[in-house]
């Protein structure tokens, strides 16, 4: 969509629009555009193709290189907590993770239904467990989610599961009580599995704007967030906000959600993602 091959500062400025509309945000965009202008003035960038290449390289660097894998604990079970704000795609992502772990028939997965609050949350996860052929630990309606997590960790350890994936209730990062509840869910597992949780995945909706950075900051305050699942990237939103999150908080994207079925999740590929940002 750039015109011809020629380059000047106006053309560099027009790239600002692509970055802003990808939800990269004002500050990061200004820095990126500033960097491009410096390169142009120094004579290092002579045409549009070079500018685009420079931009892509810069974005990929900010995203942190090699896509990290799902962590595997030194001895089983590996405990994975899935958290995030309301409606971001957590429960569906748990189903997708389960599919990735079990499709080769290799891993024995246990699910914990720790959303004990929302209407039919347990039923939703139980349906996925049934379809994927995995066991699920659930409590009474309104049970303390930490109690369910505690029981699940005990079962995962004693019955030899490779992975325990804990689905949690959606919560706004601004709700102090619910953030404390999340901290407690992580803490109670340590009684049986001292170095748990081994992986904490924050599920972000790709349509989210600048608030995603606040979400990541606040969740990181209460949990050792080790990765992001960027859900709903099959829509038109670009999810550029993950660039800022990686840069400012060091949290890498580990997976992207590309649909509503268990097969619709892929490991994060920075190159593919950056191409998508700028398209």
């Amino acid at each position, binding site marked *: 969509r750039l015109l011809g091959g020629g380059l000047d500062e106006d053309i560099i400025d027009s790239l600002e*629009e692509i970055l*802003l*509309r*990808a*939800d990269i*945000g*004002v500050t990061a965009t200004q820095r990126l555009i500033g960097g491009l202008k410096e390169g142009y003035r120094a004579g290092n960038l002579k045409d549009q193709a070079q500018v685009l290449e420079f931009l892509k390289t810069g974005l990929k660097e900010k995203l942190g290189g090699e896509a990290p894998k799902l962590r595997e604990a030194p001895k089983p079970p590996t405990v994975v907590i899935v958290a995030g*704000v*309301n*409606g*971001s*795609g957590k429960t569906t992502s748990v189903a997708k993770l389960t599919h990735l772990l079990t499709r080769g028939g290799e891993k024995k997965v246990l699910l914990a239904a720790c959303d004990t*609050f*929302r*209407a*039919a949350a347990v*039923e*939703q996860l*139980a*349906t*996925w467990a049934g*379809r994927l052929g995995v066991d699920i630990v659930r409590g009474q309606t309104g049970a303390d989610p930490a109690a369910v997590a505690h029981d699940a960790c005990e079962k995962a350890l004693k019955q030899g599961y490779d992975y325990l994936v804990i689905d949690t209730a959606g919560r*706004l*990062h*601004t*709700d102090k009580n619910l953030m404390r509840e999340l901290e407690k869910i992580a803490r109670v597992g340590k009684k049986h599995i001292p170095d748990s949780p081994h992986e904490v995945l924050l599920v972000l*909706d*790709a*349509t*989210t*704007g*600048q*608030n*995603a950075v*606040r979400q990541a900051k606040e969740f990181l305050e209460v949990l050792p967030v080790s990765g992001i699942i960027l859900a*709903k990237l*099959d*829509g*038109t*939103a*670009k999810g550029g*906000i993950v660039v800022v999150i990686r840069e400012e908080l060091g949290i890498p994207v580990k997976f992207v959600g590309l649909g*509503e079925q268990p097969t619709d999740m892929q490991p994060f590929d920075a190159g593919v993602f950056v191409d998508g940002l700028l398209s």
Partner: protein
Amino acid sequence: QLTDGLSGAISRLVSRGKLTEANIDEGLREVRKALLEADVALPVIKDFIDKVKAKAVGQLQIEGVDPGQQIVKVVNDELVALMGPIDTRIREQGNGPTIIMMVGLQGAGKTTSCGKLAKYLVEKKRRKPVLVAADLQRPAAIDQLKVLGEQLGLPVYSEDPNASKGLTGIFKRGSRAAEVCKNGVKFATQAGCDTVILDTAGRLHIDDDLMKELRDVKERLEPQNIFLVVDAMTGQDAVKSAKEFNDQLAVDGVILTKLDGDARGGAALSIKAVTGKTIKFIGTGEKLDRLEEFHPDRMASRVLG
């Protein structure tokens, strides 16, 4: 009454003395930054800044007011005017139940808002609503709406999503949801209920089959009210999805959810600017009493930060 963020930034920039075109431009650069940080869509910001500049330039002759504050006032007034008016009207049906159809992207808060709206209609408008479970694809979506119905003591119409699976091969996909909705309205009429709230499955605005499904429901039921449910933390994409839903369905209003968080909610301005449709209600929590009428002045302060 505006928070210090934008006013502070502008008054630091804009020198004392009267309003000039130069300091208007300076102030508007700050406004642009604030609106971007608030997730207002870029094309909407451009139009908005042009409008504000024209108004501010029109005030160049006014003396005795701090120019920075003048700019902020023009911005705030323009924002309120654009996002308003207050309009919580729900169109009623003359003969037969009033139908409200809830649509939107995945996870926006439609099902929860169906419950909230039903409660609001019962308590504030003395209506007798039926909730219709027309999301036939999400696991336990029907259960979710049934639980809400139980909590409210209201009837929920639903069908087994796998029923008439044999026949589904004969009808093209998309007629099942319309079928359930149609039967839901029949059920409401027979039960003496005056309002039907249709909960539909979340979907992408670029999914042609699923958007057609919504057009089918609209065509067959002719709902008096189609509400687009949008998450307040939506970023730049708000214009794309809202425009598409509105172009295809001509929505009657918007419900903006999750405003109990700290998202600035610029999507509110983007959506109004691009569809012309007003935000009727806002969601301010997960519980069913957390539905409020939309106030453009409160939203303006929040967006400007």
